[in-house]
């Protein structure tokens, strides 16, 4: 067995462990799907009655944004899961085994990706019920979902670094909340960036979250024809921008996370 197949095999053993946990402790999945449903309903009916998007309904505009926010929240599970493993001492066991050093991280990020797939399915159904429609081809829509998931997957490696650094799930949850909320709000997720005041507008336009949301919005066909072209470069080519962001995030955080993991000791 080569090192690569051993690494993948070990990663899948770990992913299986996390998937069994989802099955056995379904609370996490239930709440990580309930909260986006709540967000869809709140934003669609509360903000939707106040915010006007020229050429389309707010609900149609909103969905790509909610998808973006939700998969990012899904990515944070990676961090709290690892922090919990550290706290409970099981990382010591793993690190004393002759397994690939990346396996715990690969397993964790993979099972969190699976979690995000389930969440996206539930959210899509909720969206369709409140009036969201995909106005593009099946292939384009699939590409939109794939981009959202890829972006969340890349971010989960960054979350892994934070989770291994803070070493307590409670601290991680507070820390990630502070990071994730501005990241998903100072963006085109819930409002048009053109309506934001000067500096916020610049931040929003170059925010990686805006790129992935814009890409999804375009691929779902939820950008009304005739709407003005965004002025910022990443939003003009959102698909390429998203792929570039994912590559950068992975290139930085995969080695960083593995390095952290190699030195992580419980308690």
């Amino acid at each position, binding site marked *: *067995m080569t090192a690569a197949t*051993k690494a993948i*095999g*070990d990663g899948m*053993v770990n992913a*299986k*462990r996390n998937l*069994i*946990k989802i099955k*056995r*402790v379904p609370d996490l999945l239930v709440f990580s799907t309930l909260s986006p449903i709540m967000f869809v309903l709140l934003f669609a009916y509360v903000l939707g009655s106040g915010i006007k998007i020229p050429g389309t309904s707010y609900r149609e505009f909103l969905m790509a944004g909610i998808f973006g926010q939700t998969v990012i929240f899904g990515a944070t599970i990676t961090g709290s899961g690892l922090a919990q493993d550290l706290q*409970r*001492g*099981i*990382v*010591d*066991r*793993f*690190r*004393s*085994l*002759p*397994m690939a050093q990346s*396996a715990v991280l690969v397993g964790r990020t993979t099972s969190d990706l699976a979690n995000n797939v389930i969440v996206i399915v539930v959210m899509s159904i909720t969206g369709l019920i409140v009036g969201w429609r995909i106005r593009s081809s099946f292939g384009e829509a699939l590409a939109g979902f794939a981009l959202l998931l890829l972006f969340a997957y890349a971010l989960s490696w960054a979350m892994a670094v934070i989770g291994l*650094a803070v*070493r*307590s799930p409670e601290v991680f949850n507070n820390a990630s909340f502070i990071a994730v909320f501005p990241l998903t709000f100072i963006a085109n997720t819930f409002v048009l960036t053109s309506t934001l005041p000067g500096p916020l507008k610049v931040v929003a336009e170059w925010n990686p979250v805006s790129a992935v949301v814009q890409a999804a919005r375009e691929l779902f066909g939820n950008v009304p024809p005739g709407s003005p072209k965004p002025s910022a470069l990443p939003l003009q080519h959102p698909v390429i921008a998203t792929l570039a962001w994912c590559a950068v995030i992975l290139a930085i955080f995969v080695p960083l996370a593995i390095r*952290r993991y190699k*030195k*992580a*000791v*419980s*308690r």
Partner: protein
Amino acid sequence: MEFAIEAEGLVKRYGSVRALDGLDLAVPEGTVMGLLGPNGAGKTTAVRIFTTLLEADAGRARVAGFDVKADARALRRVIGLSGQYAAVDEDLTGFENLDMVGRLYGLGRRSSRERARELLAQFDLAESGDRVVRGYSGGMRRRLDLAGALVARPRILFLDEPTTGLDPRGRLGMWDVIEELVAGGTTLLLTTQYLEEADRLADSIAVIDHGTVIARGTADELKSQVGGERIELRVDSASDLDRVRGLLSAVAAGEAMSDTRTRTLTVPVSGGSKTLIEALRMLDAEGIAVSDIGLRRPTLDDVFLSLTGHAAEEKKDDDEPAGARRGQGENAR
């Protein structure tokens, strides 16, 4: 002689605290070494270096001939580790936990499952093997954790305080299990705070304090170093003390110590309960009334008092200096 575990001058610093301060250790193959010391002595740090979880700042260590730094991967194949806290996944069943470990050791799907069932049976967990670990008792979790360390039939086993936190029954059960294991020839490094535990399980003992070995030997050697067994008695009247002292000098193995304030006398002896009976007969024949008498054996506290001049219970909580614990970030560790 072939050493399964060898360490020379191991140093590990946490900030300004030296958790290990030049630790030397040599464990011959097929023997049981007890690393005995109080909390904070550096026992867990030593085990973590041997099992590749931590890197030493200085010194070298070899396990099964593999260098802990250079050959970490190969080393992990031949060792098993069971830590101070049962490192099992609460949301999986006992079987799933062991099967996962087997797969990660590189066992095939079938042999991993067979090994998991075999271990569950061996550790008296066959009936609860398909139940989620969350419902296990403390003793069951420890047994499962130990089973996890044995999945790949390791040549060298590390057990870090295997009975800390167990009730007396759980402790006895664990001792039986460990004795059975080492009967098969496994080399074992065991850390413990209990002299009794080291006494029962270990072939030789290294007493460790402030990150360095302060005494080595068999349990008997250590005990005799501490002063061995002694008779302690309290007389009704302090005026009897000198008489009793003179009387018992016939059975004493050393200088007796008396305390008139508490009316107690401590007499070092070597003959065990026989000597105690003899002493009682002598006192009875002389008609001297004693309110309390007994044979005392040295405890860990005695070992520590005698070897270090300070009590064993100096530090509480984790086996790490307080400044290096969670919350201080990784650099501090």
